[in-house]
């Protein structure tokens, strides 16, 4: 920001508007005195037409001549017009000519000078400072209006043009001074980035078209309101009192605008999105005009016109200012003038001609005219909203952020459902797995499955029964039993029986005497004592029994179903044995059986069964522990998760609601690392939202970070997350970032390594805060993708991208001013303070490891941390994860060959001191200095060494083996990304464009 140029510019536009209001009041009063009511539309036509003509002429001239010279010439013309007005009128010049001349020159001069103020301030400073400049413009109008009224009543209206002429001379001096200041200290608001073009991108052109439409509609509404107001004014005042009334009105209006611009508008512009700001003006116009329709009066129309004028300057012009900001500087300045001076008056002119064509009837039915005005204002509101949305798109476009419209997977049509179900039963395992994953993600309402339970294709029926095993649906039990009773495919029948067992009432039981009966006959004999529901259950199981001898799968299912449905009749040992058998053969059935009959077993017995199964049938045991495991078994799952066992991940990724509730109640039994792994694995479990909700409030920052990432993934997939944890996560993320920023202010005594870690941790906090905001946006039904993508630009981007990203955040977050304030504080330099102890204490609540590092407790580890941070591979890993790597790394001194080409290897090496030399056949040797990495390929791919590496003299290296790296990457997946990126860079000469 060029402060001197801005201050001079503010004085310049203040005086210019003082001149403009003085002259306009004089011209309008003269017109009103001279002509009757039928000529009123001509007042509007002349002022709007003059303004538009002068603006287009100014645009045409400035495209050929130097703008600064044209501006000075314009001010000279304004001086001449002002000074000569009284003489010209006395000489017989028609007042309408005076209106045209005064309005055109003074308003175009105002627009031209405004561009000079805007040139002195750029970026987010513009949001804060330009409304203040706008306030100065308004103050000029208020002074002119309120000051001129007593002057007119005492001396006469003729004094006004002389006041205007004198003011114009002062403005001319200020123009020269401000131009010098801009030349000396730069014009940040008018400087395009190097290499930038003045050509408008398609998204900018779309935005501009919308802004043109908004300006035209705004001009039409303003003209209709103006006509009704001026007409009423003329009927109430005459002579110099009319001139005084006009000046007082302008003065009062400007005074209100001034107050708003000083007190509210800057706050609105840095806290609210443009759709909100741009809605204020049309909404006020609609509401107040509607009041006028209901109760026509001078007060009502005066209030409507006042609101129109106030909000036009206070919110619509400032919105337009910001909406033009994505355009390159030159087109931006040009279109600012054209929209305000050419397009808006064109709309006004159009309305005035229409009113003229209608003639006196228009004024005889003020309510009908106002109703027409309201109708146009409603359209104006809608178009203004569209323009605001286009502005948001244009703002995000340079950051390559695109809005993502989530596919509606909540209500699949039956045809798609049938097709997917058929594919879910496909013999091709990959196709079947994808279809099942799609069905799980789509969360097909269970009721929609009912129509397909008797599908012609047995594979489809099997897939549907499988869905009902995973998500039992008691409401479908009758349809399910009916389908199972006629099922003739063994695989489908086995799955159907499981589904029947799990969908039965908690109290439903099979009669013990039917165990060996023939089903239907037995059931028939029991009709007098059993309900229809019990009979259908018996008949469904009987269908299984009738086929059990033909299929092992059916036999197994019948046995398990009978066990599940014979509460109290099976002894505990048999039940435990059955569970153990099913954990190996059919884990979902085992889980269902335990859920149904768990009360018949001791917790200690269940724990013993699951612990035993963890060695014999690990996948099934882990699946069961995740869903129903007693507390004593949870450590098995926790250890498996930390060790990266795939079945453990699968157990989490397939969690449903009840399983999520079970783990949620036992989260405190898992270590932070295990909780982090759980949080990450839940990205594939859309029905486990309650568990994600619990994890995003976790006290461990890494857990909360991972859980928020997952919450975002679920939100983008359309999963609804519980509101309370989201709000809590927002608050906590905000507090964590504040604690980090306070620590930054007090970090002067910290070591360089600790300060660097603080910087990285703070970036993670910013990302976490934005993810929380994105999840909140998703919960409110808005697209979270833009906010999520912005987090990357804010934390990784260039300075210019960061500031633009902050604007994007403002446009997309839900009116949380505190988020913007704290992110803006982060973007500003630290303000050093000495309050180290308190800030460390506060920091320890959110990032205990970092607080310890800042307090010097990990001084011994710092050299390793500093070295590990140098390669891109470890650049974005969280501090605690890096510390873990540093702790487990082995420090070695190498004096000769480290490894040879073609040798097997399982470690990578980071150079701490000295240098290494890598030699490959047919390639020049490569020196690896401190911070460089060698051997990373072996860690990722198990490939043999691709070069011979030896120390040049003696070198100190840190050795990281594959297991250590794998363990760390489970906690910090950025490591894998970093390693892949390193690998891609390493292979850059052969980097292919087509892969597959």
């Amino acid at each position, binding site marked *: 920001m060029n402060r001197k140029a801005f201050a001079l510019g503010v004085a310049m536009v203040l005086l210019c508007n003082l001149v403009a209001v003085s002259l306009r009041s004089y011209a309008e009063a003269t017109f009103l005195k001279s002509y009757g009511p039928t000529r009123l539309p001509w007042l509007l036509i002349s002022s709007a037409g003059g303004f538009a003509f002068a603006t287009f002429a100014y645009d045409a001239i400035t495209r050929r001549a130097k703008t600064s010279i044209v501006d000075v010439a314009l001010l000279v013309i304004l001086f001449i017009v002002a000074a000569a007005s009284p003489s010209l009128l006395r000489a017989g010049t028609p007042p309408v000519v005076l209106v045209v001349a005064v309005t055109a020159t003074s308003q175009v001069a105002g627009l031209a000078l405004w561009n000079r103020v805007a040139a002195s301030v750029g970026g987010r400073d513009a949001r804060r400072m330009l409304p203040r400049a706008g306030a100065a413009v308004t103050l000029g109008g208020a002074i002119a209006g309120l000051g001129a009224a007593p002057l007119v009543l005492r001396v006469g209206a003729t004094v006004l043009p002389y006041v205007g002429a004198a003011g114009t001379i002062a403005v001319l001096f200020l123009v020269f001074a401000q131009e010098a200041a801009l030349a000396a200290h730069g014009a940040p608001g008018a400087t395009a980035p190097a290499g930038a073009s003045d050509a408008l991108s398609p998204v900018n052109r779309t935005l501009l078209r919308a802004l043109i439409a908004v300006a035209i509609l705004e001009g039409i509404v303003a003209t209709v309101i103006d006509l009704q107001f001026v007409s009423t004014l003329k009927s109430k005042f005459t002579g110099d009192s009319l001139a005084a009334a006009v000046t007082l009105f302008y003065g009062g209006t400007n005074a209100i605008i001034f107050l708003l611009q000083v007190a509210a508008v800057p706050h609105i512009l840095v806290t609210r999105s443009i759709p909100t700001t741009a809605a204020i003006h049309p909404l006020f116009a609609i509401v107040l005009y509607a009041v006028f329709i209901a109760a026509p009066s001078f007060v009502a129309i005066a209030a409507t016109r006042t609101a129109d004028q106030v909000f036009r300057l206070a919110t619509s012009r400032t919105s337009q200012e910001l909406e033009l900001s994505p355009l390159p500087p030159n087109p931006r300045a040009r279109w600012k003038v054209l929209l305000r001076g050419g397009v808006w008056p064109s709309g006004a002119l159009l309305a005035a001609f229409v009113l003229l064509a209608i003639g006196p009837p228009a004024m005889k039915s003020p309510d009908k005219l106002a109703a027409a005005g309201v109708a146009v204002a409603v359209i104006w509101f809608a178009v203004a909203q569209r323009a605001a949305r286009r502005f948001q798109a244009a703002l995000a476009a340079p950051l390559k952020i695109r809005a993502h419209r989530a596919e509606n997977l909540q209500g699949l049509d039956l045809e798609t459902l049938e097709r997917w179900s058929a594919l879910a039963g496909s013999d091709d395992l990959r196709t079947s797995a994808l279809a099942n*994953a799609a069905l*799980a993600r789509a969360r097909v309402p269970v009721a929609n499955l009912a129509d397909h339970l008797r599908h012609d294709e047995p594979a489809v029926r099997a897939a549907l029964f499988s869905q009902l095993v995973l998500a039992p649906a008691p409401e479908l039990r009758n349809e399910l039993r009916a389908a199972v009773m006629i099922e003739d495919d063994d695989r489908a029948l086995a799955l159907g029986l499981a589904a029947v067992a799990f969908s039965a009432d908690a109290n439903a039981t099979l009669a013990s005497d039917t165990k060996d009966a023939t089903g239907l006959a037995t059931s028939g004999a029991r009709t007098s004592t059993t309900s229809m529901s019990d009979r259908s259950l018996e008949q469904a199981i009987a269908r299984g029994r009738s086929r059990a001898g033909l299929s092992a799968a059916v036999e197994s299912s019948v046995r398990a179903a009978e066990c599940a449905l014979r509460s109290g009749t099976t002894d505990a040992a048999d039940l435990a044995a059955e569970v153990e058998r099913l954990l190996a053969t059919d884990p979902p059935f085992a889980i269902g059986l335990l859920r149904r009959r768990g009360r018949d077993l001791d917790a200690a017995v269940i724990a013993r069964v699951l612990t035993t199964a963890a060695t014999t049938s690990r996948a099934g045991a882990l699946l069961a522990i995740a869903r129903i495991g007693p507390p004593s078994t949870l450590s098995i799952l926790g250890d498996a998760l930390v060790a990266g066992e795939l079945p453990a991940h699968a157990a989490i990724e397939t969690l449903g609601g009840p399983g999520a509730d079970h783990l949620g109640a036992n989260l405190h039994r898992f270590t932070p690392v295990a909780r982090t792994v759980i949080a*990450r694995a839940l990205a594939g479990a859309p029905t486990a939202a309650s568990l994600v909700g619990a994890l995003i409030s976790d006290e461990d920052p890494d857990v909360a970070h991972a859980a928020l990432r997952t919450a975002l993934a679920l939100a983008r997939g359309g999963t609804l997350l519980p509101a309370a944890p989201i709000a809590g996560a927002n608050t906590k993320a905000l507090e964590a970032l504040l604690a980090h920023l306070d620590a930054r202010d007090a970090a002067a005594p910290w070591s360089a390594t600790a300060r660097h870690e603080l910087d990285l941790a703070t970036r993670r906090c910013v990302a976490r805060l934005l993810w929380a905001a994105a999840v909140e946006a998703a919960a409110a039904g808005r697209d979270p993708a833009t906010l999520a993508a912005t987090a990357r630009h804010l934390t990784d981007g260039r300075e210019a991208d960061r500031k633009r990203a902050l604007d994007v955040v403002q446009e997309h977050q839900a009116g949380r001013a505190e988020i913007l304030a704290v992110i803006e504080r982060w973007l500003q330099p630290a303000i050093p303070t000495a309050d180290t102890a308190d800030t460390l204490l506060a920091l320890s609540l959110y990032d205990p490891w970092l607080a310890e590092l800042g307090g010097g407790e990990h001084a011994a580890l710092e050299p390793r941390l500093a070295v590990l941070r140098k390669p891109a591979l470890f650049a974005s890993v969280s501090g605690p994860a890096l510390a873990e790597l540093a702790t487990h790394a082995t420090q070695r001194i190498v004096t000769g060959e480290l490894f040879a080409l073609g040798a097997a290897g399982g470690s990578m090496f980071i150079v701490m001191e000295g240098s290494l030399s890598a030699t490959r056949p047919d390639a020049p040797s490569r020196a690896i200095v401190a911070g460089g990495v060698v051997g990373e390929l072996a860690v990722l791919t198990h490939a043999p060494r691709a070069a011979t590496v030896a120390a040049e003299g003696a070198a100190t290296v840190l050795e990281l083996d594959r297991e250590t790296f794998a363990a760390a990457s489970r906690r910090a997946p950025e490591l894998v990304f970093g390693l*892949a990126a390193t690998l*891609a860079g390493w292979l850059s000469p052969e980097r*292919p*464009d087509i*892969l597959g």
Partner: protein
Amino acid sequence: MDLLERASALAACRLFADLAPAVVIRLAERARPRTLEPGERLTTDDDVWIVVDGQIVIASTAAVAMDATASTTRRHGGTATAGHALGLVRVIAPGTPALSALAVKRSNVVGLSLDDMRDVLEEDPAALAALADALARVLLEGTS
């Protein structure tokens, strides 16, 4: 193309073969299909493209064509057919130059924005590891 068709198209690419089905579905949710007529161009500025069917030939931008590196030869005339990915290296190495390609016959492709792709991979470390591993294998084989 519906979600499952997009997912199947992605899964047909060898690089996505080891991804969990749920991850492929999540990628497919963000993917968008596009049909290219012969002569129509696409770029990898902001997107990764998986070829579903047809034939696409790399026709780099002028700036890239002047780049006399070893990869230049790969940038002219390299042909992508069903199951091939264009621009995938840019997901993990954003500094890799973008390319433009022309459809030589009517081709169907599925596009994923780089941001979306990175989001999904960051959400799921296992997916990231699987893709990185597959990518490493393909890179080591020098497939082009």
